[in-house]
């Protein structure tokens, strides 16, 4: 990992919505092909961090660099940056008035000005890869939650982004659909995708991550390999956080 080039770098990023900082002093480096997983209690700033990275939120301090180029400026062309940093959200965010295929083609055709036929062929390949070949002409309302999220992943993928951001993409799904979406992400990770993932699925985090970042209260509390993080936490906060999960899992097991 060390020798690989840095794709994204955050230096002392601070985010404040106006009532106290939400992100306090975030510095990190994402390397090419690296899968970084963010975990941490609800409200600790995970979504905000991803949203700052692709410019949905502005930052009040620090710097964000993409391929060594500063992107956290007043006159950043976010439309260009966002083609390089794809994002998939928690909510089912397909455009409801378009078919799956139209959803996917909007970016490549209207933003990147690519040839429609060529984009359509690639969309077909990608849909097949996520198991949605038969849903090209379906409207979002006709899809299950898991299918929608897989389509949303394809919509981000077709832009050929350098980095993909995933913000709790399985949090709103029924349990039986979580797996199909996680499998797609796992496959992307294995095939060399550079990704930042926010998730509460700890076993998935363990399987997919090169590095786990534990956020709490707007700061990076721990950062390490999955083995380090899950077996020997350095901080009490991380231990406490993980313990709440163990308790939750035991409780869930009782009920089942």
């Amino acid at each position, binding site marked *: 990992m060390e020798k690989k080039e840095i794709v994204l770098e955050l230096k002392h990023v601070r985010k404040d919505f106006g009532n106290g900082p939400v992100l306090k002093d975030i510095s990190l480096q994402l390397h090419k092909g690296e899968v970084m997983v963010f975990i941490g209690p609800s409200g600790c700033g995970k979504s905000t961090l991803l949203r700052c990275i*692709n410019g949905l939120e502005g930052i009040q301090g620090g710097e964000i660099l993409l391929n060594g180029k500063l992107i956290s400026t007043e006159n950043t062309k976010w439309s260009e940056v966002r083609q390089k940093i*794809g994002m998939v959200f928690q909510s089912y965010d397909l455009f409801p008035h378009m078919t799956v295929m139209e959803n996917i083609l909007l970016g490549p055709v209207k933003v990147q000005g690519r040839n429609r036929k060529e984009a359509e062929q690639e969309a077909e390949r990608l849909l097949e890869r996520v198991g949605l070949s038969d849903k090209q002409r379906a409207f979002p309302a006709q899809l299950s939650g898991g299918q929608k999220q897989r389509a949303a992943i394809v919509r981000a993928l077709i832009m050929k982004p350098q980095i993909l951001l995933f913000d709790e993409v399985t949090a709103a799904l029924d349990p039986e659909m979580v797996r199909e979406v996680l499998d797609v992400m796992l496959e992307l990770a294995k095939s060399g995708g550079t990704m930042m993932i926010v998730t509460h699925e700890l076993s998935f985090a363990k399987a997919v991550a090169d590095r786990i970042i534990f956020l709490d209260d707007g700061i990076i509390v721990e950062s390490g390999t999955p083995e380090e993080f899950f077996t020997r936490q350095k901080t009490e906060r991380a231990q406490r956080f993980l313990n709440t999960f163990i308790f939750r899992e035991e409780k869930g097991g009782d009920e089942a």
Partner: protein
Amino acid sequence: MPELGIRVLFMGNNLQRLFTGLWVTVRISLIAVLLSMVFGTFLGLAMTVRNPLVRVTLRIYLEFIRIMPQLVLLFLVYFGLSKAFGINLSGEVSAVLVFTLWGSAEMGDLVRGASNCVPKHQYESGAAIGLNRGQVYRYIILPQILRRLVPPAMNLTTRMIKTTSLVVMIGVVEVLKVAQQIIEGNRYTVPDSALWVYGAVLLLYFLACWPVSLFARHLEKVWKN
């Protein structure tokens, strides 16, 4: 006897006169509706801006126009303006003006409602694939607003067509006025003509409004997904 009354419709050029009157009604409504759609769209989008001053001003305008009976507005414009400022507007122009003022307010409220219905993450997912602001509106937001807007806008259109019957009161000779004239003209020969003539007017209003609701239903079917 009712069988006799129906005669009046086919006497002379009465039927043609009624249709001419209907055209006046439709013309006033059409112009007012089209203008209202345009102004209403801007008004509605303006109502979604952050600036509280703009919002409050528009809100007051909207409430004022809505609370005022349309007839009072018509009198205000037709009689009031000419007396106070010496502006002489014809009945038809006054009617178009009043119905546009009213229609724009109503339409603005519909547009505001429909645009508030599009969730925030639709803007964000559009932005996240690199669409710029204009493109997000063009491909994602406006089509969704439009789909939500069509049923209530068509409803407003038929309401406006029906309300144009008020312009009789400021001397515009439209379908209802023609009907009155025909009834008056045949008061002695066909005393029971009122039932038939007003019945015919009813049918004519139906003819004017029906295509609108057919069109709305058609669009809804096309956009069902």
